[in-house]
């Protein structure tokens, strides 16, 4: 052994080729690391381009104060400068220079066809603002800035609302490059002349939706656990042949289109549906409301997400030798004690994995709540979709998405502290 080892004059170990062993080892390790990195490079690149960058850009939209693609201060440079001298608290309309600046900026915006987008941006904060911008664009573009003043009267001629102090306060409050108003809206708050306040109770929706989404997701997770645990145990306990047969029954719905399964539940659960017809045939007179409400969402989503609970549970239970339970019983434990103290603790990594999977999938679910949720069974994802596609308020959609992401990460952190993520096992 000693004969193969070389030392240099300082007593350092040398490799066979005479370089210090430490250096040689580092080189070999580096080569290995580069090879490993090259192997995952396609995936890394793919994830970065298709996932990290778009999400990052989307999250940025939640704070950027833009109308269309441009920032508000770039679209209204003159107004933003002039309005700094005006105080909403004074209770007076802004002075002539502000209106003059507005005429300049609106004319430019109209030329670039940005004036309605400006109006839409401010309309998110105060209803009614989009119409005065749309109305004014063409008229203002015909004015001569040098000779046609004063402009305050002319704006008030177009619409009295140009004298509305609330509207001007909105413009002043949203004149920076970045804004917090989307996040405030995501928490049902708004900035008023008296500072940040909660919206009227009849306009609060996002906090309610957030709580409901989390609560229903938790309930669905629990239901999949309650239904899935015995099935997984049965699967793990049966001889391989019949277990495989049952496993296919678990997987079959998993392979069926989500839309088909959701629609099937509609047919089963509606008031004139199969289950209600059976219920009436049993002699009951009242038909039950099983769908288009929270109950329908819980039923359909529990069914759809069930395999995500059963599969991790099954693969963990598979590794628990049956002899443990027999040993516990031969040492005098009753069935309950043997299960509670010997079997169940060994399945917790599977429960953890299944619950995390189901919960996180449920929180972001969209199609099923949209189709069977009715009025009170929709999730926050349905509102995010609405803001993206129908309303076009991408800033608010991005803010809601960010809040959702943070909440899920927070829950994951709490879970890690309570249970420990190391305890999660998929098989």
């Amino acid at each position, binding site marked *: 052994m000693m004969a193969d080892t070389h030392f240099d004059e300082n007593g350092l170990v040398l490799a066979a080729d005479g370089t210090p062993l430490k250096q040689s080892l580092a080189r070999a390790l580096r080569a290995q690391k580069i090879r490993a990195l090259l192997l995952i490079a396609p995936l890394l690149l793919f994830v970065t381009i298709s996932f990290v960058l778009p999400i990052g850009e989307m999250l940025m939209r939640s704070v950027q104060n833009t109308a*269309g*693609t441009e920032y508000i201060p770039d679209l209204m440079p003159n107004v933003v400068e002039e309005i700094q001298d005006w105080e909403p608290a004074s209770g007076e309309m802004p002075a002539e220079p502000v209106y003059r600046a507005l005429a300049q900026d609106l004319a430019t915006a109209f030329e*670039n*066809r*940005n*004036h*309605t*987008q400006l109006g839409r941006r401010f*309309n*998110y904060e105060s*209803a*009614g*603002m*989009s*119409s005065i911008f*749309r109305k004014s*664009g063409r008229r203002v573009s015909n004015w001569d800035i040098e000779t046609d003043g004063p402009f305050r009267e002319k704006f008030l001629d177009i619409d009295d609302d140009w004298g509305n102090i609330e509207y001007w306060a909105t413009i002043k409050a949203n004149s920076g490059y970045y804004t917090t108003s989307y996040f405030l809206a995501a928490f049902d708050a708004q900035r008023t002349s008296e500072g940040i306040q909660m919206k009227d109770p*009849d*306009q*609060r*929706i996002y906090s*309610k*939706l957030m709580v*409901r989404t989390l609560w229903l997701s938790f309930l669905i997770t629990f239901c999949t656990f309650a239904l899935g645990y015995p099935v997984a145990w049965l699967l793990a306990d049966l001889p391989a042949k019949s277990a495989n047969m049952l496993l296919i029954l678990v997987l079959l719905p998993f392979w069926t289109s989500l839309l088909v399964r959701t629609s099937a539940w509609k047919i089963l659960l*509606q*008031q*004139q549906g199969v289950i209600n017809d059976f219920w009436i045939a049993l002699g009951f007179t009242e038909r039950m409301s099983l769908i*288009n409400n929270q109950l329908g969402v819980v039923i359909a989503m529990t069914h759809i997400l069930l395999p995500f609970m059963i599969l991790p549970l099954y693969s963990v239970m598979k590794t628990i030798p049956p002899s443990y339970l027999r040993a516990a019983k031969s040492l005098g434990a009753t069935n309950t004690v043997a299960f509670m103290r010997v079997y169940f603790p060994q399945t917790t990594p599977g429960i953890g994995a299944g619950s995390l999977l189901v919960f996180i999938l449920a929180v972001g679910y969209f199609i099923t709540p*949209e189709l069977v949720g*009715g*009025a*009170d069974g929709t999730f926050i994802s349905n*509102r995010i979709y609405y803001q*993206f*596609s129908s*309303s*076009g*308020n991408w800033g608010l959609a991005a803010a809601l998405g960010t809040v959702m992401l943070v909440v899920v990460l927070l829950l994951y952190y709490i879970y890690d502290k309570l249970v420990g993520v190391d305890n999660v096992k998929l098989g």
Partner: protein
Amino acid sequence: MKLMKTIIGTTALTVAGVAAHADSHNMADSMTVVSWGGAYQNSQVQAYIEPYKEMNPGLEVITDESSGEAVTKLRAMSEAGNVTWDLVDVTAADGMRLCDEGLAMEIDHDEMLAPAPDGTPATEDFGGSIVSDCFIPQIVFSTTFGYRTDMVDQKPESVCAVFDTETYPGQRALEKRPIGNMEWALICDGVAIDDVYDTLETEEGVERAFAKLDTIKDQTVWWSAGAETPQLLADGEVVMGSTYNGRLFSAIAEQDQPIGMLWDWQMFDLDGWIIPADLPADRLARVKDFVRFATDTQRLADQAAYISYGPARASSAPLVGEHAELGIEMAPHMPTDPANAENTFLFNYNWWASYRDDLDSQFQAWLLE
């Protein structure tokens, strides 16, 4: 002599051929048309895309069904500087939005569109349906109610039957948005039609509309896709429900369901074409040529043989004939038919553009209560 004739004939043919070639030389030989899919897009294909293709052999027409997301998609395409659409079917409100944002091309209606057969210029023939400088109207459709004829004791005559749960017990289907529902609620609460939007602008007015809707809230199924109501009616899930009149027509005439139309206070809306701004010259020339053909008096009347939406041209109405397959008279099924249009209101685009975001969040909050 014979030779002479042949030479002349050949020359004429060649000249004609060159002329025809020069004419189509400036036009792109492919065109992407975006619409809503389903029976509606089919009516467009049958009434004018197929005939136009027959007139222009070699032309490729690509159809897309993205009209539902037309505004957001056009915005994204224009940001990316690559607009691949040549012609887009949109509702009047979306058309106005796209025009205001400079994403749709402004057009001169009289120059671009064919006059009526009697020479009436296009702007007069289309009349009030030209709601924006970019909008080329095609059809008038309405959102209105259908009811199960076998589940009611007496035929409902007024839209307020929707709020009358004593005479008409059972569930109702309403669209999951404030537009339309708020107006109907106020009308049935006794607000005069001319005051509806002024009332909705006030907080008390909004509360009043919600209070009226509260009376049927727990008996309402909320829909978000137009196909849901006909299905709910066919299943007997609801006794009455709102949807687009063309959908109800299909359920009644084509599928023979026991459903009746309730036209009272139907809400009119328009649908038409817009041309994306800044198209290359050859594509623009092709689209202009197509649009002139597709919106002439006869073509708009032809479309009504496939779907029960009213042509936007006044001169098309007398030409509306029978259903292409069923052979029934289409005129009585049009939302614009005088017998159906006794009480109508036009969806107020401008008003909703300002108040939609605000009322929508109040509506959603109300649904959550």
